[in-house]
C-alpha cells in the first residue's frame, strides 16, 4: 500500500467521521468578508504591468485581509490563512510544490504550478499552457473569447452568468498572456478557451477530488487563466452595458474571477454518510419506496443469461418498495410521463430504442453505455467519445474496478476516492469522454481520461449543447452485470437511483 493510498484511507476516515448528506452550500456574495489571504507574488515580466497590488486592493475592497509573500518564504506563513493565492508573477521553479499539500484552499493563475500541484499533468502545451501574444498571436486573439461550460458548475453559478461564449478580456486594452490547463476528470471545467474542454481557463477541484496522479485535493483548488497584467483588462459590465442582460453576461471576466475566489473560500460540499452494507437495502428503501420508476428493456431476450440478470434486477428494485413499470424499448417514450425516474437497461437495443427518452422531462439513469450519444450525454464519435472495456477485441480489457474521483458528490455514496470494486469479476464496462457540463463520479483504473459513471444536473449543458431536461446519469451496468455486483457496487447503484429520483 503506497503513500497515496494511505492518504486516501486517512481522508476517508475523516469523511466518515463528519459525513452528512448535503447539497453544495451556496457561495455568498460576501464570502471574502474577513477572510485571511496569503498572496504569493513576484516580479512581472520585463515591461509588463504587475497587477498583483491592484488585485490585493480589489480583494481588500471585498473585505479580505491580504498579505503578500514571496516564493522563498516558509509555507508556515499559510498557517491561519483561509486561502492561498499564487500569482503568475511568482517564479514557479523556485516555488515548486510548496503549497501542494496544504489543507487550505489554493487559487493559482501560475500555469506551471498547475503541474507542480498535480492540478494538471506536467507537459507544457498539452496539459497546460501560457499563451504569449507574440508567439501565439492568433491564439491570443482567440482568448478574447471564452465559454462558460454550464450554469450548473459551481463557479459559473456563483458568477451568475449563462453558459456559452463570453468575453473575459477587454479588446484593444494592451497585450496580456493568459493561460489554460487541462484538469483531470475529478475536476470541474468551468470556463474553456477555443471551444475545447481540454483548454480550461477556469477549473476547480472540490476537496477530496482526485487530481493528477490520483492525488486527492487537500482542500479546494482553482486554476485561473490570468497573466501578470490580465486583471486590469478583465471585462466587467457596468453603466449602460449592465442594464442589457446580454452585454452584462458577455462582459463577465471579473465576475468569473470574483466567483472563483469566493467559491474557493466557501464551505465545502461534505461527502455523504457512509453506512454499513448490512443496512444498505433498508437505507435505499427509505429513499426509493413508493417511487414510480419506468424500466425500459427489451422484452423476452433470447439470451438466458441476459434475461435472468434483468429479471433479478427488476426483482431487487421491487424489493425496495419501488412501483416498477416495465416497458419494451419500442414503446413510445410518453410512458415516462408522471414517472419519478426512467431506467434504461443495458438490455435495450440502441438501434431500436432510437433517441427515445433523450428529451424526457423526468430523470433518466442510463445503463447502456453505447446509447450515450443518442441520449445527448456524450458526443457522437464512437471509440473517441465512448466505447467499452470488454472481453472482445477491445484495446481496453474487461474490468470490475472503477476509480471514484469525486467523493464529495452524493453519487459517491460516502465511499472514499480511489479504486472501488464494483463487480465481483471483470466484465463489460462503458468508457466515455463526457463534455464539461457533466460531473464525473468514476473513471476506470489506468484510464484516467475515461469516465465510466457521470451525471448531469437538471439544466446542465450536455453534449452538442443540449440542456438536460432533468437529471441524467450514466451508470455502467451492462446486461449481465447485475448478478456480479459487490454489495458496495449495488449500494452505489441504489444510491444513484435515489439521487436521480429525488429531483425531477
Amino acid at each position: 500500500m503506497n503513500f497515496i493510498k494511505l492518504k486516501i484511507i486517512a481522508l476517508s476516515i475523516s469523511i466518515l467521521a463528519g459525513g452528512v448528506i448535503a447539497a453544495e452550500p451556496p457561495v455568498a456574495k460576501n464570502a471574502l468578508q474577513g477572510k485571511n489571504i496569503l498572496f504569493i507574488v513576484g516580479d512581472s515580466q520585463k515591461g509588463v504591468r504587475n497587477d498583483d497590488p491592484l488585485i490585493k486592493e480589489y480583494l481588500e475592497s471585498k473585505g479580505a485581509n491580504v498579505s503578500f509573500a514571496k516564493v522563498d518564504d516558509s509555507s508556515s506563513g499559510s498557517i491561519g490563512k483561509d486561502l492561498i493565492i499564487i500569482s503568475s508573477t511568482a517564479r514557479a521553479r523556485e516555488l515548486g510544490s510548496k503549497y501542494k499539500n496544504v489543507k487550505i484552499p489554493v487559487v493559482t493563475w501560475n500555469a506551471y504550478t498547475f503541474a507542480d500541484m498535480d492540478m494538471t499533468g506536467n507537459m507544457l502545451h498539452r496539459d497546460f499552457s501560457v499563451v504569449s501574444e507574440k508567439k501565439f498571436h492568433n491564439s491570443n486573439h482567440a482568448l478574447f473569447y471564452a465559454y462558460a461550460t454550464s450554469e450548473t458548475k459551481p463557479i459559473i453559478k456563483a458568477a451568475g452568468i449563462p453558459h456559452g461564449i463570453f468575453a473575459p478580456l477587454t479588446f484593444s486594452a494592451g497585450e496580456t498572456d493568459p493561460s489554460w490547463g487541462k484538469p483531470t476528470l475529478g475536476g470541474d471545467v468551468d470556463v474553456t478557451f477555443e471551444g475545447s474542454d481540454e483548454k480550461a481557463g477556469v477549473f476547480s477541484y472540490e476537496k477530496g477530488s482526485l487530481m493528477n496522479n490520483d492525488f486527492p485535493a487537500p482542500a479546494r483548488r482553482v486554476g485561473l487563466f490570468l497573466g501578470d497584467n490580465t486583471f486590469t483588462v478583465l471585462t466587467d459590465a457596468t453603466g449602460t452595458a449592465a442594464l442589457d442582460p446580454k452585454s452584462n453576461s458577455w462582459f463577465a471576466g471579473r465576475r468569473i474571477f470574483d466567483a472563483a475566489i469566493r467559491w474557493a473560500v466557501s464551505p465545502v460540499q461534505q461527502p455523504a454518510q457512509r453506512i454499513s452494507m448490512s443496512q444498505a437495502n433498508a437505507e435505499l428503501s427509505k429513499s426509493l419506496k413508493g417511487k414510480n420508476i419506468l424500466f425500459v428493456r427489451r422484452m423476452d431476450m433470447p439470451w438466458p443469461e441476459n434475461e435472468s440478470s434483468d429479471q433479478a434486477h427488476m426483482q431487487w428494485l421491487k424489493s425496495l418498495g419501488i412501483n416498477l413499470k416495465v416497458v419494451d424499448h419500442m414503446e413510445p417514450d410518453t410512458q415516462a410521463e408522471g414517472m419519478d425516474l426512467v431506467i434504461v437497461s443495458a438490455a435495450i437495443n440502441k438501434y431500436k430504442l432510437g433517441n427515445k427518452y433523450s428529451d424526457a422531462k423526468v430523470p433518466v439513469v442510463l445503463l447502456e453505455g453505447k446509447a450515450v450519444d443518442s441520449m445527448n450525454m456524450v458526443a457522437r464519435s464512437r471509440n473517441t467519445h465512448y466505447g467499452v472495456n470488454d472481453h472482445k477485441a477491445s484495446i481496453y480489457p474487461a474490468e470490475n474496478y472503477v476509480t471514484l474521483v469525486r467523493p464529495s458528490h452524493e453519487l459517491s455514496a460516502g465511499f472514499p476516492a480511489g479504486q472501488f470494486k464494483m463487480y465481483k469479476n471483470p466484465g463489460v464496462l462503458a468508457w466515455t469522454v463526457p463534455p464539461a457540463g457533466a460531473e464525473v463520479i468514476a473513471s476506470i483504473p489506468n484510464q484516467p481520461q475515461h469516465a465510466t459513471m457521470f451525471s448531469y444536473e437538471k439544466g446542465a449543458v450536455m453534449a452538442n449543447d443540449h440542456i438536460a431536461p432533468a437529471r441524467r446519469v450514466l451508470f455502467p451496468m451492462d446486461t449481465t452485470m447485475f448478478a456480479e455486483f459487490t454489495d458496495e457496487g449495488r449500494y452505489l447503484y441504489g444510491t444513484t437511483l435515489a439521487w436521480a429520483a429525488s429531483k425531477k
Partner: protein
Amino acid sequence: MKLNKFILASSALLAMSSSIYASDPPTYKVSSTISMDSKAGVKSLVANSADRKLYAGSVDGLEIINMDSGDRIAKISSGSISSIAIAQDLNKGFATNSGDGSVTIFDLRSGKELQKVSGLGTGSSEIYYEPKSKKVFISNQSNGSLIILSASSGENLGSIKLGSKLRGISGDTRGSIYIADEKENMLHVFDVNSQKHKGSIPTWPATKPTASIMDDKERRIYVATASGRMIVLDPDIGQMIGYVPIGIGDGGIAAQFGANRFVRLFIPTTDGALTVVQNPKLSVSVESKNESLGIQSSAVAVDPKTGKVFVSGKTGILALSK
C-alpha cells in the same frame, strides 16, 4: 512567472505596478504668463481653437483672451464663474455662476452677455454643451442634480436627481454624457435624448472623480480624481482598463489628440502638480510630473493647434509648451 527580486512593502509595489512611471524631468515649461484682471486665480479655462480665444473664469467674472497674443478681448462681470461651455454652432458661450445659481449666456463674437438664466440653485459645478441635442447640462455638487437648459433659448428644461456630489461632465457623439459623482465614486451615464439615467460606472480603483474627458473614436474616458489616480474607462463596457498615479486633490483634465491614436492628457491637481499622461496605442503611462509650476487650481485647457497648455498660476494663466 518571474521572481528576480521581491519587494515586501506593498506601497512600493503599488507605485511600481500602477504604471510604467517615468521619472524623467518635466517636459513642459512656462512659455508665457497671461495677466488677468482678477487676482483671485482662475477657476475654469476653455480654449476655443475655432475663434482662437481663451475663456477664463474666476470669482470676478469671465475674461476672454486672445489665445495667440495673450491680449484681453472682453470681460463679463457676472459673478463667480465656476465653469464654461462653448457652443460654436450657436455662436454662444455659457458660464455658470456658482454663487447666485445662474448661467450667463454670452455671444462668442462680441463677448457680450446675451441672457442670464437665474434660479438654478447654488452649488453648480460644471457645465457641458451637447451639440446634437443642443442642450446644456449643469452638474450640481450640493444636491446631486443635473439641470438641463435649451442652448438655443436658455429655457430651463428641468432637472433630475442623479447622485450626491456631481462634478465634471464629458460626452460622446452617441447621445450619452458621463457625470462624475465625487461622493459616490462613479460616473453617471445620462441619455441626452430620452433624458434618462442609464446606469453608473464605478471609478474603482480610484475614488473622488472630479473631471473627465472623452476620446470618442477610441471609446475611452479619462477620469481625473482627487484620490491620486487617473482612471481610463471603457464607456461601452463600463469598466476600468487602466490607471496611473497623479497629484493629490481636485483634478482637472484636458487632452491633446494626435496622429496614430496618440493621446496626451494634462492633469493639474490642487496640490500644485501637473501630471502629463500619454496613451500611445492605448497603453497608458505617465510622461512627466511637475510640482514646481505653482499651479493654483484644477483649471486646464489645451490649444489643439499649437499644443500649448494653459493652467492657473499665481500671477495669471500659465502658457506651457515643450
